[in-house]
């Protein structure tokens, strides 16, 4: 396990880190596989070590990409009443809202249902493929940053439940049938969080080089200069 904060022996070889939720400085001890380190003060999870932080997420992300294509291209729900049949897709749902004049809501639904998860999958795939041949170029860090921002807006878990409620409401008016996209969405609702759990961003960040020290507005803290500063 490489150590981004220098290779001094003993305790100081353990990377120094500040908790993201309370800013307390602490050292992360070497973690066992499936181990997790929590902040000594607030309990926030600081680091986790999944068993295979690059291969498993890569396999899951490729699966997710295929399921995603199925989810947005196939029929989500079908409805039959008095001899008529209608069906809708995920994009069709947002489009219908747009046509009804709810353009902003349609854009939000489109973002949470297609754009954010789509970007998340593509960016995650890019990052994981880049990590296969180190060093990762500097823009690899930028890609991962955007990927992490997209993650909370990918709402297949919420959407699956929403469609279930919609199904039950509509079932009282007409007969409805679930399309392939509904199952695909259920799979994505599980897959996307699974990618995040099996993935260790630290493994990628270790491979991303820091900007040139002379031009950067800030520099990475090395163990030596931290100790030299008198703490």
């Amino acid at each position, binding site marked *: 396990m490489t150590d981004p904060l220098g290779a001094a022996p003993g305790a100081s070889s*353990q990377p*120094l*880190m*500040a908790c*993201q*939720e*309370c*800013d*307390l*400085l*602490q*050292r992360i001890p070497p973690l066992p596989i499936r*181990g997790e*380190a929590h*902040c*000594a*003060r*607030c309990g*926030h999870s*600081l680091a986790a070590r999944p068993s295979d932080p690059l291969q498993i997420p890569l396999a899951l992300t490729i699966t997710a990409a295929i399921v995603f294509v199925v989810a947005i291209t196939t029929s989500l*729900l079908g*409805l039959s*009443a*008095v001899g*008529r049949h209608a069906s*809708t897709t995920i994009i069709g*749902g947002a*489009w*219908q*809202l747009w046509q*009804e004049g*709810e353009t*902003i809501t349609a854009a*939000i*639904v489109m973002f949470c*249902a297609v754009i954010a998860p789509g970007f998340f999958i593509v960016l995650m795939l890019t990052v994981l493929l880049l990590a296969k041949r180190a060093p990762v170029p*500097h823009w690899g860090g930028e890609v*991962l940053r955007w990927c*992490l921002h997209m993650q*909370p*807006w990918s709402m297949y878990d919420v*959407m699956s439940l*929403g*469609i279930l*409620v*919609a199904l*039950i409401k509509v079932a009282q008016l007409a007969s409805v049938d679930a399309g392939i996209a509904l199952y695909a969405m259920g799979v994505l609702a599980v897959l996307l969080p699974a990618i995040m759990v099996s993935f260790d*961003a*630290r493994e990628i*960040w270790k491979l*991303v080089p*820091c900007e040139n020290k002379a031009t*950067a*507005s*800030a*520099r*990475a*803290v090395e163990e030596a200069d*931290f100790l030299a500063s008198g*703490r």
Partner: protein
Amino acid sequence: MSALKPVRAITAAQCGLISCETCKLLARPAHPEDPGHCPRCGGELEFRRRRSLQRTWALVIAAAVCYIPANMLPMMATTTFASSHADTIMGGVVYLFASGSWPLALIVLVASVMVPLGKLIALIYLLLSVQRGMPGACHQRARLYRMVELIGRWSMLDVFVVTFIVALVQLQPLMAVQPGPAVLFFAVVVVLTMIAAETFDPRLIWDSAANLENEDD
């Protein structure tokens, strides 16, 4: 779970260090008053999220204003050739409950009514407690913040329910469902509170404790 060794009880900010919010790199800015960007991921470096309290207040107030029409106006209108009626969020909950699917009624009630309201109250409490420099209850407040972050997206539930009912039930002139004006307000409440949770800086909770050097652990 591993026990960690704190480097004395000292925060990164007290050492003049900034922990990058994206890649968690510990960096020493050349100019603390203008820290610039992370040398590794290019994210913006800030000791604390910039103007966190003002921004969060603005978003919370905007969300609270939108919360009222979101609950008062109809979410969707059902038109059949004989009649037409509109349902608010509570109307939808009552309808689900009356039709016997009370577990779903409960889910919608919690996700659409209680979660957004609870989130607004929690954020206002966190903002006030930080502004007044409240020293105690840090653990409870940190847990509250994490909960707000975690459950916020679930209030999008009803927006998806309406979207897909509207998309599906288009059997003109027999029966059609139109989205109501509340959908927009509701979606905006969810988006604003999600962004508010992101602009609030949880480190501020602990800063006031550290200032008074009496941490409650």
